[in-house]
């Protein structure tokens, strides 16, 4: 049997990283455009962040500090698994603090703490094509992007309004990038969409199974699609976090018993922990067991 395999820094070989970096450069040069890349088979399953992992592996340097979140939390199992993967294959420093990280890989959230220049946010993307559920064929959607032919998307949003009185999309809410490409923000809640606009950090998107990379350079104009008389409305919560008291943050609903008890807590665990001490010393809790 062959000897134990030894892997390169951050797992991928340098040629693969170069190929991915070329795709990233193209993606940065054409914000919101989906660049095909020769995605590799990774030692974790497709759909579990292989695109994000390949992007992170390609931009990671020995002096970087990495944070990995899934659903906003550092300690969800898949975030733990990906963080450990890079600790093992790259030996880099990791953190749970948003402000200490140079690279943040995320699945489906943007941290509450505002990002700054020099940071890179890497999104894991399942289906990069915002038009996919309206048109299943890649040949057709590529043509629509090329011709900026986004009629089907506007019709879909219009039909939502006609049927429900509002746009019935709550996550993976499509955005228009720099006035040109319609882009899927990955399945982040639409609550996070405004954070993408004019963000000082570099935002990179990797879809491994679908073999696509796209990007938002710092300070890119990102507009959530809407109509003049039906402007985009981010999700709001009518309460604060039960643990730290923060308002205006994204909350997870935690079922506390089988009698309808609920509590709402920050989805961003790092943000919550940093705010919690002060809040609890002040004796505050707005724990609510609803009906």
């Amino acid at each position, binding site marked *: 049997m062959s000897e134990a395999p030894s892997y390169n820094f951050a*797992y991928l070989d340098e040629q693969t990283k170069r190929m991915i970096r070329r795709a990233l450069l193209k993606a940065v040069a054409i914000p919101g455009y989906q660049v095909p890349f*020769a995605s590799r088979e990774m*030692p974790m399953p497709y759909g579990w962040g292989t695109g994000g992992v390949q992007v992170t592996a390609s931009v990671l340097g020995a002096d970087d500090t990495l944070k990995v979140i*899934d*659903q906003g939390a550092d300690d969800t199992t898949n975030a733990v698994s990906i963080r450990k993967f890079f600790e093992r294959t790259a030996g880099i420093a990791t953190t749970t603090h948003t402000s200490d990280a140079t690279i943040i890989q995320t699945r489906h959230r943007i941290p509450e703490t505002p990002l700054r220049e020099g940071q890179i946010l890497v999104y894991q993307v399942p289906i990069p094509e915002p038009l996919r559920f309206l048109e299943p064929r890649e*040949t057709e959607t590529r043509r629509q992007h090329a011709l900026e032919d986004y009629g089907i998307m506007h019709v879909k949003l219009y039909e939502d309004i006609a049927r429900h009185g509002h746009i019935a999309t709550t996550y993976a809410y499509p955005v228009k990038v720099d006035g040109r490409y319609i882009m899927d923000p990955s399945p982040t809640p639409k609550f996070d969409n405004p954070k993408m606009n004019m963000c000082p950090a570099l935002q990179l998107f990797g879809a491994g199974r679908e073999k696509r990379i796209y990007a938002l350079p710092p300070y890119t104009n990102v507009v959530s699609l809407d109509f003049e008389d039906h402007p985009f409305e981010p999700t709001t919560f009518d309460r604060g976090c039960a643990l730290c008291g923060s308002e205006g943050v994204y909350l997870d609903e935690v079922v506390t018993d089988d009698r309808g008890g609920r509590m709402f807590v920050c989805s961003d665990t790092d943000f919550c922990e940093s705010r919690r001490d002060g809040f609890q010393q002040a004796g505050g809790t707005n724990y609510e067991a609803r009906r």
Partner: protein
Amino acid sequence: MYVAVKGGEKAIAAAHALLAKERRGDPSLPALTTDQIREQLTLAVDRVMSEGSLYDRDLAALAIKQARGDLIEAIFLVRAFRSTLPRFGYAAPFETNAMAIRRRISATFKDLPGGQVLGPTFDYTHRLLDESLDGEAPAAEPARKDASADEASPHVADLLGQQGLIEPNPSEDSSAPVGDLTREPLAFPAERDLRLQSLARGDEGFLLALGYSTQRGYGRTHPFAGEIRMGSVEVHLMPEELGFAVPLGEIVVTECEMVNQFKGSAESPPQFTRGYGLAFGHSERKSMSMALVDRALRARDLGEEAVASAQDEEFVLSHADNVQATGFVEHLKLPHYVDFQAELQLVRQMRRDWEEAQRKEAAE
């Protein structure tokens, strides 16, 4: 309270320990060796090599053991290992005419040069459970053919080709670059080289169902199993600095050539057409299914109307890979509570709107 999302790291380690214990099973029984898997579960090894796209019986056997017999998981293990291997070149095309044949049958001609060779096949076994296998009963020594009796076994399709009854194989310009979808992302429309590569890596069950659907009328291709051959072929590499081919070793492959009816078109006279399947090891079901689907996917090239799923290359090639498919299906196990929360909010709002509308209606 509120501990549900904490402790992911410990839980993962504990789950891995439990998995290792389950894999081992009853410790009072001897552990399965990878040699035993390699020698006795050969068809599982063949499938893992084929769909894992890596010809290495030892690694495939190890992967099957590590995956507790889950072949798609084993294929995934092999693929993940394969993607770390450096490419030092591409082998020269091998000639299956020169195969050392272990099995070779044709359903189109009763007898033919080289003869029909049944080889090790389940085909005519009666599927009765054999309790004598639950022990150490030695296998009977099979009959052996006199090696001097070997004669050439030309491809059946080539015999038809001599009379112009079947379309010729595409030009044999072996220096033309061949696509590689593991190095370049697949784009549509895909040429036949990429289609065949995708099918060769594709899931046996998926191709079986698609091939079957063409037989039942969803994109019918009127197939005959022109020939199925299994045996070993020598693989050569032509290093540029040497300028001549160097043998790398022998691999066992199964090749299937389907002969399909074709009515002809404005450009071509009526003649038979070809569907091609090739897989590592003894993988007959796979190579036959592949040949059926290959032919179905040639609808566009042959000017046929593509109406069925098996003829739709975006549909077939986008969904044939079981490592991709299983990953995306199984990723539904990952937490989705952020998106679900957003949907919960929406459903609650829509229910409020609906109830209000009902109330208004009742009041009117």
